[in-house]
């Protein structure tokens, strides 16, 4: 009964909100009817695609080409026509290193520092993200009480904005924050987390796992729930041990989802910027400065806005992402096959 009245209130609200929308669509009707009469029904799909294609073209396809040309020009002007063509000089500058293992020996050491930081970051972040997502998904897949509540708890941070996430943790990790209060209460000394490069990197990794774990948990949970229960029943009848069931049934059948999670986490990890930028500002020094922040700093915040160098770095990032995305596609295809 109550549900029924809810439904009608909801419907009424929806129709109220829908009224101006319907009015708009109706107002556009004569226009599109005229177009249809003019060009024929056969060409109508292009009319429907047009707005989206214009946006794609303007803000994705065109920039993709401009980006490449940008990376071949020098100077500080924004407009391409004002910029001198310098060939692959930007790339040469970026890649000029005596030893690639040591950023200090590179001409553009901040770029290489960004790359090394990003590699360290994704190694630990992806490893622990996958590990904890898997454990959480396995636990949420058990017959537990209030499963919906627990699932919501682990998922909630996913929706928070990176700025909010960073500020929440910054507040906890401050010199006089609650974590240091806890450390003092158990007899330890205060730690100035954001003064130490190691601690800053640790918290950058920790906070980004905290914020995104729920998303990957959800994908793995969906995979776990898709495993046919009769497999487990059969294993139980055979008296198979739990460990064996996990290694022989759960993990192999979950593997396609695991692959998707690993590659998605890699793609996101390579692009890490927002929450760490607000949390540590890239510091101390350049200890937590990642590749995207290098592009941002080079192109938009330095006194001399070096758009060419930023573009060249973007192209390098783009190539890395392309490789990872191909890996993702391969992983997804495998998943569909299973």
């Amino acid at each position, binding site marked *: 009964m109550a549900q029924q009245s809810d439904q009608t209130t909801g419907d009424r609200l929806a129709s109220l909100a829908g009224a101006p929308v319907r009015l708009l669509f109706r107002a556009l009707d004569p226009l599109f009817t005229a177009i*249809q009469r003019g060009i024929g029904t*056969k060409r*109508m*799909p*292009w*009319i*429907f695609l047009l*707005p*989206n294609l214009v*946006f*794609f073209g303007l*803000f*994705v396809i*065109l*920039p993709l*080409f401009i*980006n490449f040309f*940008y990376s071949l020009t020098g100077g500080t002007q924004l407009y*391409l026509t004002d910029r001198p063509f310098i060939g692959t000089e930007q790339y040469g500058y970026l890649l000029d290193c005596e030893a690639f293992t040591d950023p200090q020996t590179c001409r553009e050491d901040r770029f290489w520092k960004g790359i090394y930081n990003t590699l360290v970051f994704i190694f630990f972040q992806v490893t622990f993200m996958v590990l904890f997502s898997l*454990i959480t998904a396995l636990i949420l897949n*058990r*017959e*537990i*009480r209030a499963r919906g509540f*627990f699932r919501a*708890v*682990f*998922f*909630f941070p*996913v*929706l928070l*904005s*990176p*700025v909010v996430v960073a*500020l*929440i943790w910054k*507040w*906890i990790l401050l010199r*006089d*924050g609650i974590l240091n*209060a806890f450390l003092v209460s158990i007899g330890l000394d205060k730690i100035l987390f954001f003064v130490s490069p190691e601690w800053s990197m640790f918290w950058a990794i920790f906070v980004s796992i905290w914020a995104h774990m729920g998303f990957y948990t*959800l*994908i793995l*949970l*969906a995979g776990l729930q898709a495993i046919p229960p009769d497999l487990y029943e059969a294993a139980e009848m055979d008296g198979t041990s739990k460990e064996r069931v996990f290694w022989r049934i759960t993990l192999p059948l979950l593997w396609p989802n695991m692959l*998707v999670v690993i590659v998605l986490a890699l793609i996101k990890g390579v692009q890490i*910027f927002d929450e760490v930028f*607000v949390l540590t*500002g890239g510091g101390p020094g350049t200890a937590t400065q990642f590749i*995207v922040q290098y592009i*941002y700093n080079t*192109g*938009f915040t330095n006194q001399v806005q070096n758009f060419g160098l*930023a*573009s060249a770095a*973007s*192209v390098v*990032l783009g190539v890395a*992402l392309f490789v990872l*995305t191909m890996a993702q596609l391969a992983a997804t295809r495998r998943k569909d096959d299973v």
Partner: protein
Amino acid sequence: MSDAAATSSRTIRGLLGATRGTNGRLHWTDVFTYMYLGFGVLLMFGPVIWLVLSSFKTSSALLEFPPTFLPLGQIEIQVEGYDDPLPLFEATLEDGSVKQLAQVRRIGIMSQMVDPENPGETIQVPINRRTEVREFRMALENYRDPLERFDFTRYLYNSVVVTVVATLVTLLINSMAAYGLAIYEFRGRAAIMLLVIGTLMIPITVILVPVYLVVTSMGMINSLWAVILPGAATPTGVFLLRQYMLTIPRDLIEAARMDKASEWAIYWKVVLPLAMPAMAVLAIFSIMWRWNDFLWPLIVLNRSEVYTLQVGLNAFQGELDVQWHYILAMTVVTLIPVTLVFAFLQKFITTGIASSGMK
């Protein structure tokens, strides 16, 4: 006897939830499960609760170390013979007795205090022998001040405008494109689909500079359009809607054509209403994306009057003299809409993510 044992084991199982352990005994994995979940709740939810509690503390209370759990404020009382309310302390007197006294004034390390029940005489107490008497009190000015005195109302307004307008534009153009790709057979459709899927792989981080150039040459820098338009044509949205529209029976569309409905009418009168569940998922995603967007607005919005909440918050926390009491309160304001959406539409979001693998 065995009956009773069975019943009791059933009640134990009932109490602790269904477990994998047999005969009501807890398997070690059950213990681990609930410990993990308990710790998880603390770790995932605790920081947010700590943020909300802290946001109600006064700026002086925030400086305290160690911090108090609840927001507290010192009690002030009216004492006969004094115009202003006086702060209340618990003082240890020379004879060792403890009494609640109101402070009249502080001179150096001595505090001149008065007994509220006997306002006539003043008592000298060293300041280290008195502690504040406090009660639960929420510093609502943390919320009021930034919204009234600073630009946060402006930021809030900008964020709402960006989120609403961008979501409407996204829904309109993405559903049109999805309709075109789902309903019609035409030459070039495969190429367009490839283009859509291809652009899925190009995040804005890779094309920051050229998009900035495009937006600048269109004269949109420091206008909200610079934030709204570049992300409006989402490949995710087109893909999601198209997959859904493919499931709509063709007979319905053919029937509408028989009735001489125009293609536009078929789109908005027949297909859109049927695609509402997918539209709802896209709308929720779009609201989340836009509300939480940071890097791109940070680049194209350089004047305070066009800041969104995220950019404004970041600018505020980057100042030399960080005013945490305002920042915490505004952070709470920023997370409220997302939390509300989550509370009411959790099912939509989780099924949307699980089915599309996107966020």
